Structures are given as C-alpha cells and as structure tokens.
C-alpha cells in the first residue's frame, strides 16, 4: 500500500512520462514531497509562473508528439494554467494537468486556495475529473492519458484532492485503452471514400487544404503520396506548416488571412476543395458565405463534430487522416494538372514581386521582420524548430520560415495567446534537445512571460530567442493604421534595456540594428547550443502583407496598404 501521491508518480512513469513542468504550493505538497524519491525517472522543471508550465508542456507535446504533463497547486496555481488549457483545447494539443485541491471535507467551503477547478475547466478540456480517493488515482491517470492522446488530442485536467494524495491504496497502474462511451477514431466509411475518389478523378481543378491533423495522425507521407498521385496542389493552414517540406513540388504555401496569394486564390477558383485535418477557422476562410462556394468540398477530419460546423460540405469523411489518405490514394487515378499548377506559380510570382522581395531584400531603411526570419531559415537550412509568439512575429515567422521536416512549427493558432512563445520554445527544447529551437517573438509577447528566462537559465536550455523589437504592439498597431484611422491607442511600448536583462539571466546577447550585421549575428547565435537572445531593432511601422482583411473573401487580398490583388496580374 502506498500513498495516492506515489500512485500518481508511478502512474506517470508507467505512462512513459519523463518530464513534468510544474510549480509547488500548499495543496500539491504531498506529491512534491514524494517526487524527491522519483527523480531518477521523472525530471521536474520548475517554471517561474504556472502559465509558463502549461505553455512549456504544449511546446514539448507539439515537438515530440508525446503528452505534456503539468503539476500545479490549487487555487491560483490552477487558475494560472487556464489560458494554456484553452489554448491546448483549440489547438488539439495533448496535455495532462494535475492540480492540487483542498481536502474533500473542505470542498465548497471557500477554503484557502480552493477554486472550483472542474467548473472552471469543463468547457475548455477534453475531459476533467476530480479525484477524491487514493484508490481512484491510477484509474484517473490512465484514463487521462488515454483521452488526452487518442483521436483528436486535447487537454485533460485531474483535480487531485488532498485526501487522494495522502490516503493509502494498492499500488499498480493499468493502462486504459477502452472507454465504452468514447470513440476517438471513427472508422471511415468505405462508400464515402469511394465517392471521394470519384469526385477527385472527375475534378479538373482540385485543391487540397491541410491542417495539423496531418501531423497529429502522422500522415505526412500519405499526404505527399496522395498529392503526387493525384497531381494536386496544396496549401497548409498555420498549424499544418511543416507537414510537407517547403520545397515539396505540390506545396503552394499557407492559406488564410496572411497566407500566400496562390493558395487563397486557388481556394476561390478550384472545382474541388479537399480539406484534410483542418477545421475551417475564420482566419482561414475569411467570409465563410463566399468561401469556395464554386467548388465541391470534401472534408476529412477525425472529429466528426467539425464536419459541416463552419462551412457546408458536399462529402464528410470522419476518420484518421493517415488511414483515409492511404485508402484514397489507392483508389484515385494517376493524374497531372499541369496548367492548374502553373496558374498557382503565376499567382505566387505576383506575390514574390510585389510583397516578398520588398520585405526580404529591401534596398534601404531599417531591417524588416521578414529579413530576419529569412536569414534564420537560410543559416539553419530550414532544419530548426520554429516557435513563434502571437502577432506580426508569428505571421512573418510562418510566412518566411522554411521547413525541412515535420513538427517544426509551434505556434498558438486558435487562441492566439501572446506570451505563449518563450515558454513553448523552452518546452520544445526539452522535448527535442537535439534540435535547434528558434523563437520569433515581439517586445510585447516576450514581456508577457519574460520570467521564464529564469527557467531557461536554471535548466540550461539552449533556446534561441529572436526578439523582433519595434517598440510597438505591432499587430494591433497595424490594424489601427489600416482600419482605425491611424489612432494608435495603447500600442506604443517603452521597452527595458534587453542587454541588461540578458546579462542578468546569463544569456548570450547580440543587438542588431544595421543590415550588414544581421547575418553574422544569426550565424553566431546558431553556432552552438547555448541560450541566446538576439535583439533586432526592426522597422517600427512594419506591416504584414498580403492580407485578407477581416470580413472579406479570401481572394480579396491587399498586397500593400494601397494595392489590391487583381486577376489581371
């Protein structure tokens, strides 16, 4: 017989956990006390704020494909992870959060550091459960890992009362692989797949939009084979980036608000849209009432609730992307759509000339954000894991990074959580220590979770932090310039002396303001495996183009502040 705390830790180990991100406190102390006995198998990483723990766990999960694990105390410890739980929910990230809770006798009494954590997290978790007895701990942990990692992954919360931690029960973990009411991976209908193959064979201008579902299901090879055989051009959502290598012949770019011209225009010109493992977010679709209305739409997703949720579809296939794509590839005819793919190339040439070249190779002025991202892509040969914060750094990071392998883009997509970047990058480095992890972050987002520099220092994690400093909250400033009559409300930001911050945390540091210093600084940053803060003073009024303004159709594209894309180009 052992305590519930020991059962928890042994269950973690039985589930293959080797790293726990967390922060101790009153009502989780019994677990932390027993943790001392398990340091051979479990590495605990002490963050500086619980929000850092959950974002680090997300970064760890996204880069490794294994669930991120978080332990925090009750009350404020628990509420501080809520942003990350919501983020993991909308971005389908497997995370298991164990929060302490007051003893069962005190539940509902407004005891010190008691919050109704189950009530708070029910709408933003895949599953949550309050564990009241030590004999339920192993069962709950097994169920938590099964639910978090199978089907469409997501966050799971265990609210672990003090009784469950200190009480005694039988040791022994039994993995869970079946829950009667839970069907994580629906079996795709053979008739639907046959119908889809017919639609694909009949299409003259097919187009694929894929999302993170491809990465989550490990369907990268199957997607590539499908596109090769069908001769079909494809665009990626923000979270789908890196599922196909950037130089893959049928890959035409990113879709959505700041996506590439070709992918957005093809969406409105295709006769068949095949969407794989994506959920038609409004940042992807623009105005949904005009989105791909000329086309038939096939939607493949493991989550049946996504099919027809935002965009009406002609054929839905609920199933795992890997399985569905493999079956589809076997059925479709080998085809080429050379003219159609050439058109995509022409639209991308317009973008290259009007947007990319001025951004990446300007002749004068301050350094652009795109130059920095492009330089990192060049020097790292697209092999780095790219992590971004949220805002202009994110969009420019997504647009100008190149990817040689999968699971190389980690960003907060659905929730758009500023402050995500630094802890997520740190978690990614823990999850993939052999890879370079490079963060693009703005001055706003860095300061939201800047305390995690302490964690990076303590754990000696070699995160490469590229601070694109424009002394503004750049994305909001850009919207104020474009849509709010240049009334810059609360977006100008006075920054601290980052060199002093770097030195206080023992980080290597370079400041770059001149174009000619950029390449040397990036090379220096990527030359070894130690943490590095590269601050680049970028163009303060920098913009992100192309842009599909909110409420517009995705082929209504601004190429810059006063030039709109037109088909004649």
């Amino acid at each position, binding site marked *: 017989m052992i305590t519930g705390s020991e059962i928890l830790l042994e269950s973690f180990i039985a589930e293959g956990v080797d790293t726990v991100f967390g922060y101790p406190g009153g009502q989780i102390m019994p677990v932390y006390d027993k943790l001392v006995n398990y340091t051979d198998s479990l590495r605990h990483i002490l963050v500086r704020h619980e929000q850092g723990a959950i974002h680090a766990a997300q970064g760890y999960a996204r880069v490794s494909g294994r669930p991120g694990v978080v332990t925090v105390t009750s009350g404020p410890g628990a509420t501080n992870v809520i942003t990350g739980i919501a983020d993991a929910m909308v971005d389908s990230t497997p995370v298991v959060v164990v929060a302490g809770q007051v003893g069962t006798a005190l539940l509902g009494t407004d005891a010190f550091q008691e919050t109704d954590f*189950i*009530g708070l997290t*029910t*709408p933003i978790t*895949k*599953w949550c459960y*309050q564990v009241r007895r030590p004999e339920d701990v192993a069962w709950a942990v097994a169920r938590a890992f099964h*639910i978090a990692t199978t089907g469409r992954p997501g966050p799971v919360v265990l609210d672990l009362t003090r009784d469950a931690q200190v009480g005694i029960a039988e040791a022994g973990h039994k993995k869970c692989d079946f*829950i*009667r*009411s*839970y069907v994580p991976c629906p079996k795709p209908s053979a008739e639907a797949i046959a119908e889809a193959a017919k639609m694909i064979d009949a299409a003259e201008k097919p187009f694929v939009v894929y999302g993170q579902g491809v990465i989550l299901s490990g369907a990268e090879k199957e997607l590539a084979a499908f596109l090769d055989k069908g001769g079909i051009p494809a665009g990626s959502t923000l979270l789908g980036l890196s599922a196909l290598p950037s130089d893959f012949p049928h890959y035409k770019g990113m879709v959505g608000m700041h996506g590439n011209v070709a992918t957005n225009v093809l969406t409105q010109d295709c006769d068949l849209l095949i969407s794989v493992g994506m959920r038609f977010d409004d940042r992807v679709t623009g105005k949904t009432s005009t989105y791909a209305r000329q086309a038939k739409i096939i939607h493949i997703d493991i*989550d*049946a*609730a996504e*099919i*027809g*949720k935002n965009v009406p579809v002609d054929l839905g296939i609920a199933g795992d992307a890997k399985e569905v794509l493999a079956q589809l590839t076997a059925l479709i005819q080998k085809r080429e759509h050379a003219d159609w793919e050439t058109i995509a190339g022409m639209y991308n040439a317009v973008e290259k000339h009007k947007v990319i070249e001025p951004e990446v190779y300007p002749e004068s002025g301050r350094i652009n954000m795109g130059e920095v991202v492009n330089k990192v892509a060049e020097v790292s040969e697209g092999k780095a894991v790219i992590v971004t914060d949220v805002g202009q750094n994110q969009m420019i990071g997504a647009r100008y990074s190149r990817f040689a392998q999968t699971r190389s883009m980690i960003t907060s997509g659905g929730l758009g959580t500023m402050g995500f970047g630094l802890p997520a990058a740190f978690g990614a480095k823990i999850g993939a220590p052999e890879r370079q992890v490079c963060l693009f972050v703005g001055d706003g987002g860095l300061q939201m979770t800047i305390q995690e520099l302490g964690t990076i220092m303590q754990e000696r994690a070699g995160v490469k932090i590229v601070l694109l400093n424009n002394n503004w909250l750049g994305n909001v400033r850009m919207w104020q310039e474009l849509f709010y009559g240049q009334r810059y409300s609360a977006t100008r930001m006075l920054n601290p002396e980052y060199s002093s911050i770097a030195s206080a945390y023992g980080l290597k540091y370079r400041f770059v303001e001149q174009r000619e210093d950029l390449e040397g600084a990036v090379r220096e940053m990527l030359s070894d495996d130690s943490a590095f803060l590269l601050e680049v003073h970028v163009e303060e009024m920098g913009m992100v183009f192309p842009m599909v303004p909110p409420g517009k159709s995705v082929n209504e594209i601004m190429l810059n502040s006063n030039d709109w894309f037109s088909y004649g180009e």
Partner: protein
Amino acid sequence: MENKLYVVSVYTENQVGLLGVIANIFTRRSLNIETLQVLPSEFEGIHRFTIKTRTSQDQIDRVIRQMEKKVDVIKAFYYVDDEVLIREHAQVGEFLAAREAEYESDK
C-alpha cells in the same frame, strides 16, 4: 432557416458534472432549453437526458455532434417535436375531456 421545436435525447454514463457539460453545449450557442429531464434509461447504469429546444436543423445537427464528442456521452438523437407533441397533446386532451365529462355527469 426555419426554427422548430426539437426533442433531444442523450444517453450518457452516470458521471458527476455531466448535466453542466450538456447544458453548456446549449448555453454556448444561445439556445434556450425549454424543458429538461434526466432519468435512468432502460439500460443499466446509463442515464437519459431529454431536452426540448427551439432551433434550426443545421444548429441541432451541430449540437448532436458536439454532444457525441463528449467523452461520457454514449449516443445523442433528435426528433422534430411535432409528432411527439401531437401524440402527447392528443392524449392529454383526451384525458382532460374524459375528466370533464365525468365531472359533468357527477353534477
């Protein structure tokens, strides 16, 4: 799209907190729950929620799928209320008419 009164029938595991989970699906979409009933179903250990709500066909389809997505939900169905309502209404009507007739004949 035309709004109709739907009867939603949800079979679930007997887990603490599920009422909130189910109710949230309606709340998030600003759907008013007209009636709600939770009873043990004809299957042992499984509960059945019966909920009436007024909404469109599209929305009720989404609601059903969101319900079935929940870990502890086994199956969810919906019916257009008309048939059920008409039958129930007729039965209650007959019952009341009979009672009234009894009252009249007693007088």
